[in-house]
Structure formats: C-alpha cells, structure tokens
C-alpha cells in the first residue's frame, strides 16, 4: 500500500496523544484482552484516532483521560458483544444474557487493576495487608514493621489515591 501522508499538524497531535496517553491505555487494554497484543494495538490505535477526530474532548485535560478509557472500554465490549472475541467465561446461561454481564465485570476488574497500578508499592502493600488479608491496624503494623499511626495514614492516602485514579479513568468509585 502506498503511504498516505497526513498534515504535519495532525501528525504532531497524534504523536502527542500517543506519547501522553498511549502507555496507560496500552497497559489497560492488554489487561482487558488477556495479553492479546495484536488486538490491543488495534484498540489503542482506534481510541487515539477517535480522540484526534473529536478534539473538543481534549480541551479539558482532567476529563480527557476518562473519555479515552471509556472509548477503549466500549470498543472492547462492543467487540465481545458482536461475538468476535469474548472474555473467558464458563456458563450454562444463554449467551445473550451472560456475555454483557461478564464483559462489564471483566471491565470493572481491569479498571481497578489499572488504577492500582498507578499507586505506589507502599500503598498497594498496605491495602494488601489490611483489606485483602483482613489484618487489624496493630497486626498490619507488625507485619510491615511500622507504627500503627502510619498504617492509618497510609490506608487513608492509599484509598483516596485509588478513588482519584478510578475517577480519573472514567470509572465510578
């Protein structure tokens, strides 16, 4: 195929979109697609193309990332619903009922995973000890070798950071 040249301003905008949002979208979409890199590349490109086509969404930087995640998510879900690719499911229900729900759940999980990735290791660690392992403040303090007050403030900052990250990605938390 012959190369199709686009204007330098368009190329500049696409390159900027790619550099600024590409890595986070890539990480999110590969997670959603269980590591299918070929499909993920397609979804990320399509998402960035739509942003380039709708420059008004980029006017507000605080909202644009949420928009991009939402678009990427929609492309993946619409694909699943169209039956092209589906998340791994084991079900005895009719596919018309089971697929959308499972798709939404997979998507929710991946969004939270991507949000957790933006947290520091320290913050993830304290959530692991407290929330997932069900330890009390005193037990978590002992496990991590820090004072109890630190456990409280770390869980405070970790959970608020997680909430901000999920909202930033267009999710509800």
């Amino acid at each position, binding site marked *: 195929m012959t190369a199709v040249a686009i204007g330098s301003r368009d190329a500049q905008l*696409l390159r900027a979109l790619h550099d600024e949002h590409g890595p986070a979208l890539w990480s999110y979409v*590969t997670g959603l697609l269980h590591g299918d890199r070929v499909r993920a590349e397609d979804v990320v490109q399509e998402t960035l193309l739509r942003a380039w086509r709708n420059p008004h969404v980029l006017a507000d930087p605080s909202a644009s990332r949420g928009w991009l995640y939402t678009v990427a998510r929609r492309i993946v879900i619409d694909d699943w619903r169209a039956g092209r690719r589906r998340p791994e499911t084991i079900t005895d229900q009719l596919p018309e009922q089971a697929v959308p729900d499972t798709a939404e759940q997979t998507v929710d999980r991946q969004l939270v995973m991507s949000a957790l990735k933006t947290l520091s290791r320290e913050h993830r660690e304290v959530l692991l000890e407290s929330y997932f392992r069900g330890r009390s403040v005193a037990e978590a303090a002992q496990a991590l070798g820090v004072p109890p*007050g630190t456990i409280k403030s770390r*869980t405070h900052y970790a959970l608020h950071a997680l909430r901000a990250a999920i909202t930033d990605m267009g999710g509800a938390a």
Partner: protein
Amino acid sequence: MSDADAFEHDDAAYVMGLLSGAERVAFETHLKSCSDCAERVCNLSSTTEALAVLTAEALLALDESGDEPMPQSLLPGLLRRAGIRQRRQRRFTTGVSALAAASLVSLTVAVWPSGQPAAAARPVALSAVATTPLHATAALSEVRWGTRISLDCSYPDYLPQGTKRAFGLTVVAKDGTRQLLGTWTVAAGAHTRFTSGTSLPQTAIRSVQITRSDGVAVLSLNL
C-alpha cells in the same frame, strides 16, 4: 478543629474495618459532629466496593508483572490509519454534498413522509462519556420559543435496592456557554420522563448532556 485533625486519617481504616472496638466507637462519635469525615467515609465505602472485585493474588501479580512496553509499530500504524481515514472522509464529504444537491427534494420527502413538521423528532440515545449504568434518549423539537427537550431515562434494576442519584440536564451552546435546564432523581429500576427546554434554537446547540450533581457529564448527545 483539632478534634477533626486527630481523626482525619482514620476514615480508610474505619471503612475497611481495621479499627479496634474502642477506636471505632470514638470515630463513630466523631462522625456525628464532623460532616467532612462523614462525607469521606461515604466516598471511601464505594471505593472499597470497587476493590471487592479483586483478590490478594491479583494484587500480588500486579507487583510481579512489569508493564510491557507499547509495540514500536503502534505509532506508525496510527499515522497510517489517520491518513486513510482522512482521505476516506474527504471522499465521503464530496460524495454527500453532490448527492444532497442532486436530490434535495426527494430527501425532504423521505425524511418527513407524513408531512409532519421537523418538530416530531425521534428520540436518539445519548452516548456514555463516563462509566454509568444510566441509559437515556432525548428528543429535540424546534418550537416557537426555542427547543424543547424530552428526556427518557432509566436506571437498571440490577443496582442495589434503594440506589438513587440526582442528575441534571445541561445544554452546551455552540459558543461554549452551558445552561442547566433542570435536575431530577432516578432510582434503581425506575424509568423517568423529563421535559424541559431552552431559548436556544436547535442550530445553536452543540450538545445535550446529562450531568452528575458535581457537574461532570456522564451521557452526551452531540448535534
């Protein structure tokens, strides 16, 4: 005030159930008199609900797996696809205007076959611009005083019983100004009809949005 400071960091530990009995009682007493802490507790409760979809294993796997870099081919492919799309768009636009010029009369007839005015608008679904379970359609009709907007929205019944949210109907004009046309509450499983209007003619409207109580748009219809 110093009282609030002492409890400021306890919200997450409280929500996740980490506090000892005495600490919990003290914090709950404090909550009754501190609306800031109460609001934070309320917010964090839904954040821990979001965490409930994961397991400790998933969280541990996150630490072990480094992020794979984006493939080198992504950007060149993106630029190529943009070029193809731009070229196709140009062709399409030229084609459409030629078609429109050639069949203006028949097109008018096709759109309003029963001779009804443009005012009998069909409802169009709004698309999500943020994650939301809300579904809505809007029908816009040109009237003497401006534009009437009839909204039909529903909240799925799989949401927890008693879930209620307030939403607003906002129009964004082509000059960027926004008008809030009204607010209403939707409950889980409920269906709400809402009609409002604006003095703006339809041609001056850029988009119709449904906004959360904090002003963030969740659904949008671009005109």
